[in-house]
C-alpha cells in the first residue's frame, strides 16, 4: 500500500467514530465543565454565560456552584457515605466471588465454560428486573421478613423491616455487580500453575499455607481488576437507592439525578457530576498502576 493510500485508510477508518464520540462524549464533558461555572436559568437549565452589550463582550460566570459543595458538610458526608457503600459492596463481592472463582477454576475444563455462563446469565436480565426481584424479597409481607421477625419475636426483639434500609441497598448492589468481580478473578485463578501448589505441598505446606502463600498473592491482580469494575459503577448508581433505600439509603447518584430532573439546578448538578468523574478517573489511573506492578500475573 502506498503511503498516500495508508493515510487515506487511516482517515476513513478513524474519522467517523472519532467525530461521533468527540461530539457526543467529549463535547458533553466539556459542556458540563462550563456549566459548572454558569448560573442556573430562571426556569431551570442554564442562564446565558456571556452578554454582548454595545459591542463589548461580558462573561457571566461564577465559582458559587463549587463553593456550595463546601458550604455545609452535607455533600461531603454524602460523598463519604457513597464511597463507603461502594467499598462495602466491593468487599462483599470479593468475599462471595472468591470461592466461586476458585471452584470454577478447579473444575474440569469442559465444565468451566458453562459455569462461567451461569455467572453471567443473571447479569443479562434487565437491570430493573434484578432490582425488582429484591423489592419482592425484602417486602414486609415477604417470607424473608416474616421469617426474620419470627426469630426476633422469639428473642424478644423489635420486628425488623429490611425494605428501605442500607442492608437492602448493599445486598442489591452486590447482586447487580457480582459478575464483574467473578470474571477477572476467575481469569486470573485459571492461569495459576498447579505445579506451584504441588511443590508447596511437597515442601510440607498445609492447606491454609498453600492458599495464603501461593494462591492469594498471585490472585491479587485479578482481585484489583474486579474491585475497580465493581467500585466505579457502584459509586454512580441511583436506581437501587431510589427503589430500595428510602431516605436513609441515598447516594451521590440520587442527588445528581435530583439536581438535573427535580430541582433542575444544572450548574450544581454538573459540579457533583464532575466530582464523580474526577474520582472515576483517579481510580482508573490507580488501577492502571496496580495492573503494571512488577511480577503481577495478569
Amino acid at each position, binding site marked *: 500500500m502506498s503511503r498516500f493510500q495508508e493515510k487515506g*485508510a487511516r482517515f476513513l*477508518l478513524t474519522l467517523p467514530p472519532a467525530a461521533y464520540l468527540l461530539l457526543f462524549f467529549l463535547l458533553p*464533558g466539556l459542556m458540563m465543565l462550563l456549566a459548572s461555572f454558569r448560573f442556573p436559568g430562571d426556569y431551570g437549565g442554564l442562564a446565558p454565560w456571556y452578554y454582548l452589550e454595545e459591542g463589548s463582550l461580558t462573561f457571566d460566570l461564577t465559582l458559587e456552584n463549587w463553593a456550595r459543595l463546601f458550604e455545609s458538610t452535607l455533600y461531603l458526608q454524602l460523598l463519604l457515605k457513597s464511597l463507603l457503600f461502594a467499598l462495602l459492596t466491593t468487599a462483599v463481592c470479593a468475599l462471595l466471588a472468591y470461592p466461586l472463582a476458585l471452584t470454577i477454576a*478447579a473444575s474440569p475444563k469442559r465444565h468451566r465454560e458453562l459455569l462461567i455462563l451461569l455467572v453471567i446469565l443473571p447479569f443479562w436480565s434487565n*437491570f430493573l428486573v434484578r432490582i425488582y*426481584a429484591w423489592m419482592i424479597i425484602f417486602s414486609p*409481607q415477604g417470607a424473608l421478613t416474616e421469617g426474620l421477625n419470627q426469630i426476633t419475636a422469639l428473642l424478644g426483639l423489635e420486628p425488623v423491616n429490611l425494605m428501605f434500609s442500607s442492608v437492602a441497598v448493599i445486598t442489591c448492589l452486590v*447482586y447487580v455487580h457480582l459478575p464483574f468481580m467473578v470474571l477477572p478473578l476467575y481469569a486470573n485463578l485459571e492461569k495459576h500453575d498447579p505445579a506451584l501448589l504441588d511443590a508447596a505441598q511437597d515442601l510440607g505446606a498445609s492447606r491454609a499455607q498453600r492458599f495464603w502463600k501461593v494462591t492469594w498473592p498471585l490472585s491479587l491482580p485479578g482481585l484489583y481488576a474486579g474491585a475497580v469494575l465493581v467500585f466505579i459503577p457502584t459509586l454512580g448508581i441511583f436506581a437501587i437507592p431510589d427503589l430500595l433505600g428510602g431516605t436513609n439509603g441515598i447516594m451521590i447518584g440520587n442527588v445528581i439525578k435530583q439536581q438535573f430532573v427535580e430541582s433542575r439546578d444544572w450548574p450544581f448538578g454538573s459540579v457533583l457530576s464532575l466530582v464523580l468523574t474526577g474520582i*472515576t478517573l483517579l481510580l482508573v489511573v490507580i488501577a492502571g498502576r496496580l495492573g503494571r506492578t512488577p511480577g503481577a500475573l495478569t
Partner: protein
Amino acid sequence: MSRRNPFVTAAAVAVYAFLYIPLIVVAIFSFNDSRLNAEWVGFTLKWYRQLLENDAMLQAATNSLIIATCAAIVAGVLGTLAGVALHRFRQKWLTALVLGPVAMPDILIGVSLLLTFMLMNISLGMMSIILAHVTFCIGFVAMAVQSRMAGMDDTLLEAARDLGASPWQSFRLITLPLLMPGIVAGMMMAFTLSIDDFVVTFFTAGVGSSTLPLEIYSMVKIAVTPEVNAISTLLMLLTLVLITVLSRFSPQTLRS
C-alpha cells in the same frame, strides 16, 4: 488446582443460589393468582393477558425495539471502523475515546448528554435516545471487532495484495467477511445493552418516547404488581434467547 475443598464448593453453590433465587421468585409470582407477591394462591395467566391489553406497555416495547435496532446498526458501523482502526494504528487517544463511555458510570453519560442535547436544541425523544445509546455501544462493538482482528491471519491480506487486489478490494473481500462473526456479536451485544438500558434513557427520553425499562420503573415506583413480574419474565426469556444465539457466534465476546 486439583484439590477441592468441600467448604469452598459449598460456598460456591450458595453463591449460585444467591444469583438465581431472586429471578426465579420473580418468574414464579408472575403466574400467581394474587395481587401480592407474598404467598402462592393458584396458577393464572391473567397478568400476561393484562399486559397484552396495556397499550402504554406495548407502545414502550415497540419504542424499545426501534431504538435498539437503530442503535445496533449505527454502533455496528461506527464500532467496526473503530475496532479496525484500533487494531491497525493503536492510537492511544482513540482507545481512550472509544472505551471512555464504557468505563464511565452511566449516570455521567446520561446527564452530560441531557445538558448537550438541550444546549444544541435537539429535542428529547426517540432520536436523542438513539444518539445516546450509540455513544456507549460503539465501545462494545469495537472490542468485539478488535478481538476478532487480533486472531486474524495477516498473510491472507498479503496474498491478496500480491494477487493485485486494491486495499478496498482486500478489505471488502477478505477483512470484512472474516470480521463478520465479531461484527454480528458486537451488534447483538449493542442491541441487548440498548434494550436493557435504563439510566442513560432516563435522562435522554422525552414525552411520548417511553421505553420498556422506563415503563417498568414508573410502575415499580408506584407499586409492586404481578404485571411487572410478567413483563420481567418475558424480558428474561428474550435475553435468554439472545444470549443463546450470541454464544453460538462468539463465546468470547460474552466474557469481555
